[in-house]
């Protein structure tokens, strides 16, 4: 099947929507489909072969912050040309309610259109004022996908219509192999943590307390922490002075370094106390094959197959965490076993699985429909 995907945000700026589109496109290509993505991009940005640049995105205030978007009649003609030359069986637009390429594609195209909503923001009033202009595009969408239950709820309550929920996947092969950071994990062993340090529900304080117990008993053990925080000093002061030189804070790290962090530790810890619907970081650690100790919340119990693919400890209990992590650090055979089980379990969440779910939405909307074509110029307005 030939699939045209539109990305509303600049390809050269890292972001959730962009990586979603990249992983989806690559998974679909792996399945043997023809995929072309059109995205705003600077002219000198090296683009993957399947991405067509739609010119530089313009920074413009939208919804209280500055977004880099493509709009205007030049973008319209680029989208037209892309559709005319693409010969797509289905058009997949992402975030069609953002004033950028996806909205324009809906406007100029006819035929089967699928839309994915990533963040549904209630802005019904704006849509109402510009209704005649925006409606024409929106009404052509044949099927909607929401990436989370929250996005779907906002869509249903504030904008109208319904959507199927297909969550983000994990690009497992990106995590499979990486070089550890120099000097890690080290002879005394290492425990890792990824996530916001000052978000209480991520549970870093549970891990720090457990490290007090573990660090006192194991003189070489180190703790590797990566993630943004307003105040790193403050985090360090929560650890007893004697242990501080064995706690390493990396701050926010790049995607590549994140994978290296996962490969730099003997045990990865997900001490969240709640608020996770899926636990993407835990799934990424599974994809890296690092043995996991996680709190016993629903999201983790599900992704870790009830403890088969990782140790679960009593949520919020540093003593239990220290015991579970200590057992793992002492037992190399058990670590091997958990690593293999995690790699097997995370395959269920791989992008290839997600891409197949998305593809079945494509198959539904193309039924009894023709190819994607252009509407006649000038007929876009009702």
């Amino acid at each position, binding site marked *: 099947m030939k699939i045209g995907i539109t990305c509303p945000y600049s390809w050269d700026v890292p972001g959730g929507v962009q990586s979603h589109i990249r992983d989806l496109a690559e998974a679909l290509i792996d399945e043997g489909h023809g995929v072309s993505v059109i995205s705003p991009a600077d002219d000198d940005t090296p683009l993957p072969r399947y991405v067509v640049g739609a010119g530089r995105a*313009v*920074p*413009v*205030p*939208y*919804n*209280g912050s500055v977004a880099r*978007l*493509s*709009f*205007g*009649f*030049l*973008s*319209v003609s680029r989208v037209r040309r892309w559709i005319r030359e693409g010969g797509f069986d289905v058009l997949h637009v992402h975030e069609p309610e953002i*004033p*950028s*390429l996806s*909205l*324009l594609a809906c*406007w100029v195209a006819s035929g089967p259109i699928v839309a994915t909503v990533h963040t549904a923001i209630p*802005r019904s*009033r*704006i849509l109402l*004022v*510009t209704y*005649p*202009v*925006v409606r*024409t*595009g929106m009404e052509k969408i044949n099927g909607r996908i929401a990436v989370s239950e929250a996005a779907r709820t906002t869509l249903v309550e504030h904008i109208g219509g319904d959507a199927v929920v297909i969550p983000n996947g994990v690009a497992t092969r990106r995590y499979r192999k990486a070089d550890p950071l120099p000097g890690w994990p080290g002879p005394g062993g290492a425990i890792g943590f990824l996530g916001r340090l000052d978000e209480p529900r991520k549970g870093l304080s549970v891990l720090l307390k457990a490290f007090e117990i573990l660090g006192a008993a194991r003189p070489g053990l180190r703790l590797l922490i990566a993630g943004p925080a307003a105040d790193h000093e403050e985090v360090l002061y929560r650890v007893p002075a004697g242990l501080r030189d064995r706690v390493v804070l990396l701050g926010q790290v790049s995607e590549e370094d994140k994978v290296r962090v996962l490969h730099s530790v003997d045990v990865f810890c997900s001490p969240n106390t709640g608020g996770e619907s899926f636990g993407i970081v835990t799934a990424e650690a599974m994809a890296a094959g690092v043995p996991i100790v996680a709190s016993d919340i629903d999201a983790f119990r599900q992704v870790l197959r009830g403890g088969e693919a990782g140790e679960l400890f009593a949520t919020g209990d540093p003593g239990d965490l220290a015991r579970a992590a200590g057992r793992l650090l002492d037992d190399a055979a058990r670590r091997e076993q958990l690593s293999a089980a995690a790699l097997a379990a995370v395959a269920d969440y791989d992008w290839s699985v997600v891409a197949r779910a998305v593809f079945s939405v494509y198959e539904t909307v193309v039924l009894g429909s023709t190819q994607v074509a252009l509407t006649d110029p000038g007929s876009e*307005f009702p």
Partner: protein
Amino acid sequence: MIADIILVIAAALFIGVYVSWRAGRIDRLHARVDMARAALDVTLLRRSSVALELATSGLLDPATSLLLAAAVHGTRGGDRPHDLAESDLTRALRAAFGQPGFRSSLSGKEGADELLAEVEAAAHQVFLARKFYNDVVAATREARNRPLARMMRLSGKAKAPEFFEMDDSLVAENSGAPLGF
């Protein structure tokens, strides 16, 4: 003796008249600030109205329309402070008008030239009204801060007027490039 008394009374009278003249001046300045502010608000409102008219005119592509409509929406209440929201509208207008060939792409469409001219005129009026408003605010603040005015509390309970700071530089004239980016 009597001459001395007359002199003292005359001096007191003179000072009294002078002080009350100064107080009256500050009062008049405050009134002028209010008028200038009302004028500024009218021009801002007119600008957002014509911008919305342009957004819903069907002349523009839906993305540009939605951008403008969202910016107008932001200026009419909402969480964002008024000056920031108005600056956002300026930037949205500049981004729309700054597209290369923007004007030529619209010329010939019915009503387009008039509407564009109206938006530009409204934006220019905002620029003027804000200049005049900040001018009288500066004069008022200066008058209030003079030692005599401070000592005698001549401004009474009136609050010191605030400058209205926003991005209001005009949209590019056929230059093909948005200003300020």
